[in-house]
């Protein structure tokens, strides 16, 4: 039995390969000028796929890939150039390269390897950068361009490099393009591809779901540098003669336009964009030639990009593959198995699963947490409340690894997680939801949960099954193929909880899970949480303003005020302490609970009911 995800991928690969084979066959009988156009657009398509793999899935625009194309083109060119030509074209070749002539396919592979090597080196830096990553890719382009211009014995500097056999027939171009498309499509639904797409939609939510963002970016960058290298190897055999300026801004603009017009978020978008932009460029070129206009092609590309970004910023096809859109219209298969219990980490009731000890955090002068300690036990709910600014968010950030505390010891089960990154804490069993919802908005509901399943170690196929089961437990499996934004608010909350559960967590931090829900929904959610608690053995840290919810749900309660623990113990006892009432509630408990349901959740309720 083949899984739905695999079937979709297979349909896509077979379908697009067939389309490209047909294009090659038709192209093969066309007159040579037109055939050349088809060949060159197939070569460009492989470059677009390289960009799709990195930029499309990570959301980080890359200007650097054309540099990889250039590195591969020169490497392949030098290695396959006939030795007789080398004597005149490249008399100063070092390392005995002058006497060397490799078969075409070996030269192409060497080109790909060279590009990949540069990809590894540059990727180690790029993957670590945040906002600046795009600019750093630009630096990569300039470095590689500068190297091509500088390495005169190898490249003839800024002069034309010539004498490369024109080996890139339409068939060669077709094979390279088909391989590039297959790699891009396989990557999209791979473990790393899924993680990368999650990080594109929301980096914080991704790492809190166990995604190794930097690792995923590095892997995609390296893979895409290899694919860009394949384009470069084929491009060398297409052009025969070229110079460093052929691998600079004009080619970058061309590839980016192709990617953006079709939609960077999907492989199909890249293919469609390449076809459309190729046709537009050809028309512009003819018009430009007959009117002696300078740079009309570049101007045309720039205008196409602007129009696309203004009127259809996700491109013609958006973030979904066509086969995914078809699935979107159908109902997901809901498994018939019921009453299955969730896999449980072996934790006896009452065993401490999270122990945060003496967390201290200062923000330049302001002490946000003054040594806060609390514990969460398996199968129990610990509540955390406190007025705005009391340090709840900072506490959650310190426990999840988003903020580094100045002092603390944090144990998850018996493991010290104090110095671990967020994603590792998540994989060790620390699940969480967010106060303002953070779902992966361009991924289906099932994929939102599947990503976390993958991070907890499941194969993508297995992950899908498990994701559907979790969605069933939360009662939202019927939405599996939709995007989270299309769901009612309460159901989005449930998807987020399902995603946290997908980590098979020891502890779940729920940050105002009932915000925006009416009392009936909130009670239903509570019942669901209690059944989860009973079946999975997770311990819950519940942060909420809803005193009624806290009172009925929690086994223990901690109250924070001004970054310190004000009270800790049984909810009834804690809530009846005058100090708590004064600090947090500003009056009697019953008054405040009414006030809260208006103040804290009213705004969001208004949004939903509209």
């Amino acid at each position: 039995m083949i899984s739905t995800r695999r079937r979709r991928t297979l349909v896509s690969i077979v379908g697009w390969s067939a389309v490209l084979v047909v294009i090659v066959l038709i192209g093969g009988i066309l007159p040579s000028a037109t055939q050349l156009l088809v060949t060159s657009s197939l070569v460009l398509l492989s470059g677009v796929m390289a960009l799709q793999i990195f930029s499309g899935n990570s959301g980080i625009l890359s200007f650097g890939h054309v540099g990889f194309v250039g590195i591969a083109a020169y490497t392949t060119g030098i290695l396959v150039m006939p030795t007789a030509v080398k004597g005149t074209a490249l008399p100063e070749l070092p390392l005995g390269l002058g006497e060397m002539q490799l078969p075409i396919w070996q030269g192409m592979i060497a080109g790909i390897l060279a590009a990949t090597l540069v990809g590894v080196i540059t990727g180690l830096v790029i993957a670590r950068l945040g906002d600046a990553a795009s600019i750093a890719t630009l630096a990569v382009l300039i470095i590689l361009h500068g190297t091509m211009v500088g390495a005169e014995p190898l490249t003839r500097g800024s002069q034309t490099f010539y004498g490369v056999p024109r080996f890139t027939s339409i068939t060669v171009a077709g094979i390279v393009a088909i391989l590039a498309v297959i790699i891009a499509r396989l990557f999209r639904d791979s473990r790393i591809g899924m993680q990368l797409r999650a990080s594109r939609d929301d980096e914080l939510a991704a790492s809190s779901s166990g995604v190794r963002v930097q690792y995923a970016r590095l892997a995609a960058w390296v893979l895409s540098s290899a694919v860009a290298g394949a384009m470069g190897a084929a491009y060398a055999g297409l052009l025969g003669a070229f110079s460093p300026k052929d691998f600079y801004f004009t080619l970058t603009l061309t590839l980016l336009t192709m990617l953006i017009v079709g939609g960077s978020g999907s492989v199909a978008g890249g293919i469609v964009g390449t076809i459309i932009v190729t046709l537009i460029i050809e028309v512009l070129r003819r018009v430009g030639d007959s009117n002696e206009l300078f740079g009309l092609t570049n101007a045309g590309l720039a205008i196409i990009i602007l129009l696309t970004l203004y009127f259809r910023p996700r491109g013609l096809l958006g973030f979904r593959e066509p086969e995914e859109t078809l699935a979107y219209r159908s109902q997901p298969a809901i498994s018939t198995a019921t009453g299955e219990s969730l896999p449980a980490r072996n934790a006896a009731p009452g065993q401490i699963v999270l122990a945060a000890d003496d967390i201290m955090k200062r923000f330049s002068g302001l002490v946000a947490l003054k040594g806060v300690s609390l514990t969460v036990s398996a199968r129990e709910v610990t509540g955390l409340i406190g007025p705005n600014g009391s340090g709840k968010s900072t506490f959650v950030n310190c426990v999840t690894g988003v903020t580094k505390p100045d002092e603390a010891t944090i144990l998850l089960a018996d493991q010290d997680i104090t110095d671990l990154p967020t994603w590792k804490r998540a994989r060790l069993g620390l699940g969480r939801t967010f106060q303002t919802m953070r779902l992966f908005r361009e991924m289906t509901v099932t994929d939102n949960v599947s990503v976390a399943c993958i991070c907890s170690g499941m194969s993508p196929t297995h992950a899908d099954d498990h994701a559907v089961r979790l969605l069933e437990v939360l009662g939202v499996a019927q939405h599996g193929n939709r995007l989270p934004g299309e769901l009612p608010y309460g159901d989005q909350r449930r998807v987020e909880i399902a995603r946290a559960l997908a980590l098979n967590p020891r502890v779940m931090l729920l940050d105002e899970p009932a915000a925006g829900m009416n009392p009936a929904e909130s009670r239903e959610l509570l019942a669901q949480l209690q059944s989860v608690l009973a079946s999975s053995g997770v311990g819950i840290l519940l942060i909420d303003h809803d005193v009624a919810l806290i009172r009925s749900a929690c086994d223990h309660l901690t109250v924070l005020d001004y970054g310190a623990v004000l009270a800790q113990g049984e909810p009834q006892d804690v809530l009846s302490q005058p100090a708590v009432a004064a600090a947090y509630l500003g009056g009697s408990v019953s008054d405040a609970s009414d006030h809260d349901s208006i103040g804290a959740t009213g705004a969001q309720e208004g949004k939903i009911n509209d």
Partner: protein
Amino acid sequence: MDAILTYVVNVISLGGTYALLALGLAVVFSVLRLINFAHGELMTLAGYTLLAGIVLGVPFWAAVIAAVVVGGIAAVIMETTAFRPVRNANPATLLMTSFAVAMLLQVIFQNFISARGQAVPVPSMFTGSIPIGNAQISIIQAISIVASLASLIVLKLFFDRSRWGWAIRAAADDFETVRLMGYRASRLIAVAFLISGLLAGIAGVLWVMQRGSVDPLMGLKPVLAAFVVVVIGGLGSLPGAVIGGYILAGIEIALQTWLPESFIPYRDALTFVLVVVVLSLFPNGLFGKRIAEKV
């Protein structure tokens, strides 16, 4: 000793220009999260305005003022026409938009002015050099140092003393809060672009005076340098942009002066490699701070 003096003068002169450009980029980034690729084309436009002024026989000082003003106005027009439709888009879309705008402007310059560089006849009083010790400093370089430092001081006063300056500095930390304080987003963005354009105008004039010519692709190299500067300084950090400008100039001129001749062709590549090394040590730039997300 003279070599060091010459080096310092070169760094202050080039670094000042980079600082002006980078500051312009940083101001816009603060309010819009846009890294404006077309910033270099504002320089080019200022360069052409200067040329037009000189050709038309306008006094030189008037041509300079016109060039700077045109830079400022063009930036505001660019914002209202090109960037407003994507104002709320993600940074990748904004960057791509500005990349397309830059490409478009280059083609327009090539077709409507000239694809080739045009000589800009700088008045003879600006040619020649001043001896300092045994070293020679060209007058244009001296002007460049004075002008960039003066601009930075004026800007510093603007940021410290004026309401709008405060607002922009605050916007660098948290634009949303600044809006809640009663500043209209459109007005604040327009002011940011105006400042950025004026700075690009000044930098453009200095650049053209040093090189003596203006061409359609002129803005590319300095704007790429300025990109790197804002990244080294920390995206969104205004002091970082200024200090980064001098750091980059320091690296670039050191390589130019002391690099063995066989490595000279790799100069730009090496400069950027050093930058990447800095970034790998400080992923958020030297003065950047990771803005903690509210959960």
